[in-house]
Structure formats: structure tokens, C-alpha cells
């Protein structure tokens, strides 16, 4: 199947713009690219984690485009990947020809209250999401030789790439010294090493027919296996067992197999950089490098825009911010533009095979492989 059209409402803070208005802007743009009008799609999936009941209906209602099934999908940071998986399944089964997928979110600044945690966990101070990121970062430092300088380098790389992205929230390059000079949120993570929850929308039109040239070769979602204590599933305890395969690897392996490609075939990657260490962990989980090789891969320059395998040419969530429901589809929008050669100053030359990765609460991990 193909991506017939993509659309985006810039990620950032938009106090004057309602959630349905942001969603409608992204949907309009994607439908226009696909040359699909009202009645031209047979189902719609809306990804959102915080927008509340029937958000997809609000967006399509604002456009006067209701009547087909509209289903909201929530899978934490992987909500957009989950919606895309459902849409792809509906088309692959032959049930639908054209499906609209979009994600919307409007989140406040700072740590977000999540119904995921029990009230007693909040009371005990255990609902501190950045602290879990920090513990995971420390483990990566312990096992993979990652240093705080590497974490700062990820931020410098992504912010430099995001400076060329008009849809990003932060559009300025930063220096490593300034990253390390920003306040410590949870050691080893400084403020600038963490992405900002924000607002935005993204939309993708999937179609069975092949006209546009960008294909979806796999859209896989996997949940976690039990046992790992610092998985995005955020359990209270886990086993002293290093053999538990993380959900991102489960999803990546399934996606590589389905698409008939391997990590060595990739030209460009957008991966979950909720924090700087998460991107490096992603290198290992997605098999972009051997286990323990993430620092070396970063140091080699391979994952910079001019490198062998650019990661997060959009600037990543560190530049764009993270509107949960929209973030995974935002990656797909970026990669579709890259594959079409519309990447402007952040274009990866000759990109033909692209991978998008998100992972979030649940834990759910999504991997999408796109080719042209």
C-alpha cells in the first residue's frame, strides 16, 4: 500500500488554536495531497493520549467529514504507530481501500499527570516520569560506555537538524556546553536532554493502490514482555534477568522481516528521542549497531545529517517537542517527505528506505518501514 498524502500542523505551543482546528489543518493538508475529498476514505483512526472522548469525531466533525467509522486509538507515545498499524491492517485485509490516520494532542508544559500510575504511586513520588528516563540513561552509561558528553552530542545533533525544520518548536542550534549547563532535572539528564510535551497534529492518508511512489512496507506494533524493570511499562519491580527482549526490538525484527529489509538497508531513521539517551538506546534496540555500540555509532558521525545513516533529520522530539498522539505520525510525515526528495535543507540525498520508531507507555513500540 502507499502513502497517498501527508499533512502536519506545526508542533509547538498554540494557545489560540483549538485541538479540532489543529487536527483539521493536518487532515486537510493530507487529503489535499492525496486528492481525496469527503467520502473518499472509508475509515479514520485518530491517535491521541490526552485529548479525551471522541477526539477524532471532533476533528472530522469540524470538517463536515463524518459518516465512516472513526476510532480513537491510545497507545501512549506510540499512539500514532498503533493507529497506522490498524489502518494498514484494514487495507491489507482488503476491507478498505483508503484510510485516514491522524494524531492530535494539546498538552501543558512540564511533567504530565498520567492515569497510568496508581494514586499511591503518585503520593510516594514514584510517578516521576523523567526519573525513569534517568535511570534508564544511567544503565545505558553503565553497559554501553555512554557518557554525559554523548548525551549532549545527541542534543547538539538533533537541534542542529531541527534548525532547518519549519514545523519544529525549537529551531536553533545549541552547543554542548549549554546543554550541560542547563539545569539537572534527574541526574544524568539535564533539561535540554528531555523533549517538551507540546501541541500539534499530523495526518497520513493510506491507500491500497500504488500511484504516489512511497510504500508502507510494514507498520508493526508490539507490546512489552514481562520482566524488565526499566521498560516503558514502568513496573514496580522486575527480574534480575538481562535476556528480556525489549518491545522496540520485537517490533523492529518483525518489521524488518515483513518488509524484507535489514538495518543495513536503511537510508534514514526517525526514532524516539524522548530523552537523549533514548535515541542511543534506540540505535541498539533497532539493531543499527551491535549491543553496546551506540556511543561508537554516534561518535562516528554516521547518524548525523551528513552521515551514512542520518537519525532524526527532522530534529527529533528534542527539536519538535512531543505531542503524544501526533508524534509517531509526525515521523512518518518527515520520512515521506524525505523519500519524495522534499526534505529541503535537511534532505538525506537519495533516501529510498526509511524507518520510524516510537515507544511509549504500555509498553508499546511501533516500527514503520517506508520505501520508494
Amino acid at each position: 500500500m502507499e502513502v497517498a498524502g501527508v499533512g502536519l500542523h506545526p508542533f509547538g505551543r498554540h494557545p489560540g488554536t483549538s485541538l479540532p482546528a489543529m487536527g483539521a489543518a493536518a487532515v486537510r493538508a493530507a487529503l489535499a495531497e492525496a486528492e481525496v475529498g469527503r467520502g473518499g476514505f472509508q475509515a479514520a483512526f485518530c491517535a491521541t493520549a490526552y485529548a479525551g472522548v471522541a477526539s477524532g469525531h471532533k476533528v472530522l466533525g469540524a470538517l463536515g467529514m463524518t459518516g465512516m467509522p472513526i476510532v480513537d486509538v491510545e497507545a501512549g507515545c506510540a499512539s500514532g504507530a498503533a493507529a497506522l498499524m490498524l489502518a494498514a491492517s484494514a487495507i491489507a485485509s482488503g476491507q478498505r481501500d483508503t484510510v485516514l490516520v491522524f494524531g492530535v494532542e494539546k498538552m501543558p508544559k512540564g511533567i504530565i499527570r498520567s492515569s497510568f500510575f496508581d494514586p499511591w504511586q503518585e503520593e510516594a513520588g514514584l510517578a516521576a516520569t523523567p526519573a525513569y528516563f534517568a535511570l534508564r540513561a544511567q544503565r545505558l552509561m553503565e553497559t554501553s560506555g555512554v557518557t554525559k558528553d554523548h548525551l549532549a552530542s545527541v542534543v547538539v545533533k538533533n537541534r542542529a537538524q531541527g534548525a532547518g525544520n519549519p514545523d519544529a518548536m525549537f529551531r536553533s542550534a545549541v552547543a554542548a556546553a549549554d546543554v550541560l549547563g542547563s539545569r539537572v532535572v534527574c541526574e544524568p539528564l539535564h533539561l535540554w536532554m528531555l523533549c517538551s510535551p507540546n501541541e500539534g497534529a499530523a495526518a497520513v492518508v493510506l491507500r491500497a493502490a500504488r500511484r504516489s511512489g512511497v510504500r508502507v512496507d510494514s507498520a508493526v506494533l508490539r507490546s512489552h514482555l514481562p520482566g524488565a524493570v526499566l521498560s516503558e511499562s514502568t513496573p514496580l519491580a522486575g527480574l534480575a534477568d538481562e535476556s528480556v527482549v525489549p518491545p522496540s526490538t520485537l517490533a523492529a525484527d518483525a518489521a524488518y522481516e515483513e518488509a524484507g529489509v535489514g538495518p543495513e538497508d536503511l537510508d534514514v531513521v526517525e526514532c524516539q528521542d524522548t530523552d537523549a539517551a533514548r535515541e542511543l538506546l534506540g540505535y541498539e534496540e533497532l539493531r543499527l549497531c551491535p549491543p553496546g555500540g551506540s556511543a561508537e555509532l554516534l561518535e562516528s558521525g554516521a547518524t548525523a545529517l551528513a552521515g551514512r545513516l542520518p537519525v532524526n533529520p527532522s530534529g527529533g522530539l528534542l527539536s519538535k517537542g512531543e505531542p503524544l498522539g501526533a508524534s509517531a505520525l509526525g515521523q512518518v510525515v518527515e520520512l515521506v517527505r524525505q523519500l519524495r526528495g522534499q526534505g529541503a535543507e535537511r534532505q538525506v540525498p537519495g533516501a529510498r528506505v526509511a524507518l520510524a520508531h516510537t515507544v511509549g507507555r504500555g509498553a508499546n513500540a511501533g516500527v514503520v518501514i517506508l520505501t520508494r
Partner: protein
Amino acid sequence: MVARVPVRQGLFVDADPPLLLGGRCRSCGRPHFARQENCPYCSSAHTEDDAFSGPGRLWAHTAVTAAPPGYQGEVPYGFGVVELPVGLRVVGRLTEADPSRLSIGRLMDLVVVPLHVDDEGRHVVTYAFAPEAI
């Protein structure tokens, strides 16, 4: 003597030394915390009560510098994962709020600490881990 109330019933025994109240699977034999009816690893419904004691080894640690949602206690506070002898890695508060004073592998005692005072004037307490005196 100020009355003490656990932040959640059935989570730990507020004694000296304290115990964490978890379970063990009668099918696969693996321990879990907090107590569940079904084994989180093999999904067997045949589980039984078990209790776990410290000390354990610090496996990962940080400090929380701003109050997360729903938290009324003081900041900063230590936060980490301690690996108990039973083979469980447990997430919890640490009594040491300066990460530079701890390191991975440090021996940590299981303790019970106050979080805040509730509307009835009682100390709400939770389990935590404290670096063992060297």
C-alpha cells in the same frame, strides 16, 4: 508517638527490619512485587504470598528535583532501583538525595520513611532504600 499509615495497604510490613510483601509463582517459581493474583511472567493463577527483605545492591539511581504530579512531600529525593537477594529489582525512593554520594553496587537497606502528614495528622509512610553505613 505520631500514628503511621502505609501509603498503600499490603505493600510492606512496617517493622524493623521491614519486609516487602510480594508473591511467588507456584508454577515457575519466580518472585514478584507488588502482590498479584496471577504470575506476571508465566500467567499462572497459582501464586502464593512471599515477603522479601534487604539489604540489596543499588542497580540504578538518580534524584527527583521537582515534585511530580500528586506528590506532596519534599524535594529533592533519591529514586532508584535496588536488586534484592531474591532476584528482584525493585523501584523505590532512596534516602540519599545526592546522586554523587551513591554508586551502582552499593549495599542498600530496606527502610520505611515518612512521606507527608495526612489530614488526620498521621505520617503517611512508604518503603525506601537507605545506603548501608560503611
